[in-house]
């Protein structure tokens, strides 16, 4: 009911669209992370492309150069680029990336041998104003690098327009995510993921997301007419038809099949994401008044990523999401060798069980299918406990 992409494989359809844009003479900037100020790329008249980082094929290619004991996302990012298996990287004129974690920042040294790569230096914590000042300065440095590499000028006017347009897109994304507040939730996780891919890899993203938001409104109205209820803080309701799960932790696209789809097959309903591809990066808008560089810095620093130390915002955001989406259980995904999420999971687990009073399951995995059966066993037991 949500599907927008023609053949259900949006990533690959996006390759074709990307090639057409290149043939038309558009410049392309590849990115990896939600710390990237997409507004700067858009204001430069370039197309932003999310680079490939989620396949086991990419991991094996990455291991030809990088050590094996690194997070699969870092290995796949480099592997897909170096083996020329990622058309988005192939068509990218430059890459804008961040020193998000140790693995990534050292990998970027290798990546910069393949493509002009601007690395934004991310502060390590947010406990003083200095972090925002430093990151604002990094926004200016990124602007200069994009202008220099692409031979373009980023005007204040174009930047303000890009900020306004991306805020609109964030509001539309929140509308789409709000379908997950319905009990029972009428959209399956498979359908939701394919729809998100359709949006993520569409290069008229704003219009695609807007159409999806309109569809989300219709889905909600129809469900409410048919007796569904909208969860929220303080909303009283009976037992969920299926256990309602929130996903938190590392980026999860590379483990969709063996974790997300397995949760649904076990009888649960995934209704919310509090990870990079979830509500937490959409809730905060870039201020449309005042200094746009500081506004972009303030917004992106609110990603609540575990790379920040300490990272108090994540607990607040997690609690809000659990209340808003009527959550019955939290599943944390940790990619192997991601130290910051793995360590933070100890405290997050305690917080979810003791403060929120909800069951919590931490799953550490990679992109291979070697632990598929083990994951399925743990997932089945977790869901059964909530039935």
């Amino acid at each position, binding site marked *: 009911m949500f599907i927008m992409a023609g*053949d259900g494989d949006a990533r*690959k359809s996006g*390759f*074709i669209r990307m090639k057409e844009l290149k043939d038309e003479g558009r410049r392309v900037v590849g990115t990896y992370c939600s710390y990237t100020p997409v507004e700067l790329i858009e204001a430069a008249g370039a197309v932003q492309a999310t680079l490939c980082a989620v396949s086991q094929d990419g991991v094996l290619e990455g291991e030809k150069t990088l050590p094996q004991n690194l997070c699969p996302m870092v290995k796949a990012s480099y592997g897909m680029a170096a083996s*020329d*298996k990622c*058309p988005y*990287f*192939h068509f990218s004129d430059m890459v804008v990336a961040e020193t998000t974690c140790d693995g990534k920042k050292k990998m970027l040294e290798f990546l910069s041998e393949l493509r002009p790569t601007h690395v934004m230096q991310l502060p390590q914590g947010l406990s003083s104003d200095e972090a925002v000042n430093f990151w604002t300065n990094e926004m200016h440095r990124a602007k200069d690098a994009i202008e220099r590499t692409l031979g373009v000028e980023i005007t204040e006017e174009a930047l303000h327009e890009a900020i306004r347009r991306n805020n609109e897109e964030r509001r539309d994304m929140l509308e789409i995510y709000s379908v997950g507040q319905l009990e029972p939730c009428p959209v399956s996780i498979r359908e939701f993921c394919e729809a998100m891919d359709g949006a993520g890899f569409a290069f008229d993203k704003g219009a695609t997301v807007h159409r999806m938001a309109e569809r989300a409104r219709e889905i909600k109205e129809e469900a409410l007419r048919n007796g569904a209820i909208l969860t929220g803080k303080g909303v009283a309701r009976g037992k969920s038809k299926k256990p309602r799960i929130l996903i938190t932790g590392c980026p999860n696209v590379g483990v969709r099949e063996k974790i997300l789809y397995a949760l649904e097959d076990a009888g649960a309903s995934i209704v919310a994401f509090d990870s990079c591809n979830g509500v937490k990066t959409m809730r905060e808008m870039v201020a449309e008044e005042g200094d746009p560089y500081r506004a972009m810095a303030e917004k992106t620093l609110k990603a609540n990523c575990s790379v920040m130390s300490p990272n108090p915002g994540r607990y607040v955001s997690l609690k809000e999401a659990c209340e808003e989406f009527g959550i019955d259980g939290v599943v944390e995904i940790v990619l192997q060798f991601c130290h910051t999420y793995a360590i933070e999971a100890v405290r997050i687990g305690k917080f979810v069980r003791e403060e929120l009073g909800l069951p919590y399951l931490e799953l550490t995995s990679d992109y291979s299918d070697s632990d598929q059966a083990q994951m399925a066993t743990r997932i089945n037991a977790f869901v059964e406990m909530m039935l």
Partner: protein
Amino acid sequence: MQDPAYFIVSFDRTAATMEAERLFKARGIDHAIMPTPRAVQASCGLSIRFSPEDLEQVKEMIGAALEEGIFHFYQAVKDNGHTSFQQM
């Protein structure tokens, strides 16, 4: 009832796809770049589709220009509305 509908050639590297597309254009062979079908695993994600009557010409052209092992030919077969791909 089986009907060899069309052929595709998939590539392990994006640069190879781009080089092959240039050759198709230079020779004036009817073709279309398409996302590699899910059933076809080894690929950079892009393939080139062409007609059965051009098969021999395309095999000769690609074989002469690109390194062995980085391209793979598949035959698309439509059977009762379902398309399957057989590696050649």
